[in-house]
């Protein structure tokens, strides 16, 4: 049965998409974990939905690029809007972000079904990796290439900025530019994973891999490459087992990555809850 599946172009595309998207997002999850703002990434991912809706509304067609610019625009609007609202000092930034992103998400849920597109709302919320076309694959591949190239070329200034922006600036790093770059790549990564896991679950793919690695090692570079391997490998494995188990592939990816995280949390040789080293330390 597996052979039959592998021969199908849909299935081949799905596996390739899982590999590209999983690796890119897993790699970039290193930055998300180091930035320590996974929750605002979650807000950002929900915000993509109305962005896409408005993108389709304005241009009349649905393409990855419309989706990208719509998502980018909405993310900027909500991200900067929450900062602006919080500046009034009456409302904390987390509060204003929560208010704005849920409102934006609700607007997306309301608008999308009214638009004349073939895909269902569910597709946008939870993804449908079996439906990726050749063009989607190319876009996922290009986004992956751009992110991997940019992050590897600028790894030093990026890490300096994430560690301590003031010290980085005192060493001549263009901190502001680096922060915008991270934000831009974040939106790119989110958009690329839209097809696979949808906007609700995309955070899982963009946080869990490096979070898992951080339980296993202290090496900074391992967060990125290890995150990429876990993201890519986990996504492929999830797509393969999702069929026989009768689970949609998008949720399967995020469930599998979550399970790996829990396993690492429990059994990591160094920091695991049940590791011999940790247990010994806990004893008086």
């Amino acid at each position, binding site marked *: 049965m597996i052979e039959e599946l592998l021969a199908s172009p849909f299935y081949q595309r799905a596996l390739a998409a899982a590999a590209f998207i999983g690796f890119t997002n897993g790699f970039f999850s290193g930055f998300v974990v180091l930035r*320590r703002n996974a929750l605002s990434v979650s807000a950002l991912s929900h915000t993509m939905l109305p962005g896409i809706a408005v993108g389709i509304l304005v241009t009349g067609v649905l393409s990855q690029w419309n989706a990208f610019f719509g998502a980018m625009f909405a993310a900027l609007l909500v991200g900067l809007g929450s900062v602006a609202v919080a500046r009034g000092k009456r409302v904390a930034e987390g509060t204003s972000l929560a208010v704005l992103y849920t409102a934006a998400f609700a607007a997306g849920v309301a608008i999308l079904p009214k638009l004349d597109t073939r895909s269902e709302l569910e597709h946008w919320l939870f993804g449908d990796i079996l439906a990726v076309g050749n063009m989607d694959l190319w876009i996922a591949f290009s986004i992956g290439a751009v992110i991997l190239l940019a992050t590897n070329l600028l790894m*030093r200034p990026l890490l300096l900025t994430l*560690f*301590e922006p003031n010290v980085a600036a005192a*060493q*001549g790093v263009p901190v502001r530019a680096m922060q915008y770059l991270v934000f831009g790549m974040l939106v790119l990564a989110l958009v690329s994973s839209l097809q696979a896991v949808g906007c609700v679950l995309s955070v899982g793919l963009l946080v869990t891999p490096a979070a898992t690695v951080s339980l296993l090692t*202290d090496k900074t570079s391992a967060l990125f490459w290890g995150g990429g391997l876990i993201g890519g490998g986990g996504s492929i494995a999830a797509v393969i087992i999702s069929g026989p188990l009768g689970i949609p592939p998008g949720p399967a990816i995020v469930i599998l990555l979550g399970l790996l995280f829990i396993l690492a949390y429990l059994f990591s040789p160094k920091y695991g809850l049940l590791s011999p080293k940790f247990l010994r330390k806990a004893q008086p």
Partner: protein
Amino acid sequence: MIAGLSVSYRDILALSGVSMATSCGNRVALIGPNGAGKSTLLKAIAGLVPKSSGEIRWRGTAVRKWSREFAYLPQREEVDWSFPITVRGLVEMGRYPQTGWWRKFSGDDTRAVDAALDSLNLNELQHRQIRELSGGQQQRAFLARALAQEAHVFLLDEPFTGLDRNAAVLLADLLKKLAGEGRLIIASHHELVSAPDLFDEVLVLNTHQVAFGAVTETLTPQLIADTFAIPV
């Protein structure tokens, strides 16, 4: 030296009329009440906040934005100590102005890192994660980073805050040693009593410059009372 330096945030003047001339080998304390602009002055010298007027001259030329010879050491609580990096990794970051964004570490870079770790007694701790360090060790790790950068001017924001007695004594000795080797130490400091033991010169700030000079002559009871608004 600093001439006529002012810093504003939007329309609010945070610091004005700061002028001082000092030279390498000195330890300069920035003293003043909360909100007096001590941190702002350090950041202005490091090039982190724009100057609205005035200039900083170093080795006879005006410093434009930043200089490799200036090292900024933030307050300890501003640093994310849970960042996954070893002490050695932190010190290696100090070499990035020399290596640039891509060049691999050369023998010179490695030697500079080794020497910096060595002179701050961090050899045995170099493979530890920075989150496992004590306050004094964290402070030393950042000093080693500045040494690896081959900085001549060390800008420290409240280096003695939160250190226990032993660590504070150790740090005081280190600063003395660094200054003795010809470096310029500029540090904000909130404790008046210990200033004469720890520093050579003092700049008293209260959003503007109140006084500057040798620490023993400058810190008179009258001046302290005026600046901190405490009755003598």
